[in-house]
C-alpha cells in the first residue's frame, strides 16, 4: 500500500454487522456466518450483493506483514430469510468475538 498521499477518505464498501453463526435453536454451524448489510431489507435487494467479497478486519498486538491490522476474507453466498440478512462464508471461520462486529462488504466482483 502506498502511504505517500493520505488524503481523501473514500469508502467503497457497505458496512455490515456480523450477527452470529448459522444455527438452529441449540446447534450452531460456524462455517457460515450471518451478516446484516446496512440498508438491505428484503430478499430481492440481497440479489445485488450475491457473490460480493467481504472482509472482517481486526487488530492484533503482533505486527504481521508490517501492520497491526489483519483480515479474514469471505463472500456473500445467499440470502437468509426474507428480511435482507445474508449468509456468508469466510476463508477461515469467523472467531466468536466477531459477533456484533463490523464487516466490510465490497462492491466487487462487479456486474454493473
Amino acid at each position, binding site marked *: 500500500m502506498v502511504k505517500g498521499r493520505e488524503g481523501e477518505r473514500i*469508502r*467503497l464498501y457497505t458496512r455490515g454487522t456480523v450477527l452470529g453463526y448459522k444455527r438452529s435453536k441449540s446447534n450452531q454451524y460456524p462455517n457460515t456466518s450471518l451478516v446484516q448489510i446496512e440498508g438491505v431489507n428484503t430478499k430481492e435487494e440481497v440479489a445485488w450483493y450475491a457473490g460480493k467479497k467481504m472482509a472482517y478486519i481486526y487488530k492484533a498486538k503482533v505486527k504481521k506483514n508490517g501492520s497491526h491490522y489483519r483480515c479474514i476474507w469471505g463472500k456473500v453466498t445467499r440470502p437468509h430469510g426474507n428480511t435482507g440478512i445474508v449468509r456468508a462464508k469466510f476463508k477461515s471461520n469467523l472467531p466468536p468475538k466477531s459477533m456484533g462486529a463490523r464487516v466490510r462488504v*465490497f*462492491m466487487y466482483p*462487479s456486474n454493473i
Partner: protein
Amino acid sequence: MAPQQRKPHVCRNPDLIRGVGKYSRSKMYHKRGLWAIKAKNGGAFPKHEKKVADAAPAVKPPKFYPADDVKKPLVNKRKARPTKLRASITPGTVLIILAGRFKGKRVVFLKQLTSGLLLVTGPFKINGVPLRRVNQSYVIATSTKVDISGVDAQKFDDKYFGKKVEKKKTKSEGEFFEAEKEEKNTLPQDKKDDQKSVDAALIKSIESVPDLKSYLGARFSLKAGMKPHELVF
C-alpha cells in the same frame, strides 16, 4: 423431368401394422422392378467385380504389448477466449475502479486486450492514472461516454505491460550490490511518450464537454445513506 425437383418418395410397402407390410415378398419383387433390371442385363442381376485391396505391408508382430489397454484422453475442443465484455462497457466509457491503488478513480476505457483485461487511462494529467490494465470484475461501468475516436490504442497489448526480463551479467562481489539499484525505479521515456500521445487526443475531447474534466478528477465514494444496490451508475 425438372432436374432438381423430386417428389419426396412415398413408401412402396406401407405398414398394415408395425412389422407387417401390405405387400408380399413376390409382390415387392415385382414392384421394385428387379425383373426389369435382370431382363436388361440378360437374365442375371448385374454384378461388379470386387476391388482388389492392396496387400497390407507385412508388419512384424510388436515386441511389447502393454499390460492394460492405454486410455486415450478425451477430445477437448475448448478455445481460449478473452472474458466476455459486459454490454455496458464500450470504448470511451467512464469506469470507476473499485480496488487497488487507484480505487474510486474515474477512468476512461480504451479497449479490451487479448488476455481479457481492460486497457484504461486516467488520463494521467487529469487524475494520475496511467495507461493500465484492469480486470472487468473490479470496475463499475457508468453511463458517461467520452469520444475516443482520436485515440490510437493499437500498439498496446499484454506484452507491453509485462515485466522486463533483465539480463544477468554481474556476478563479482563488488559490482553486485551497486548494479542492482540502478534500473529499478525510473519509467522508460518511451512509456511516458506513449502516455502523452494517447492522452493528448483524449484531453481535447474531454475538455469539449462541460464539467467532464473535474468529474474525471474527482473520486467516487459511498456516502451516508447511499445504497449500492439502488444506485444507477
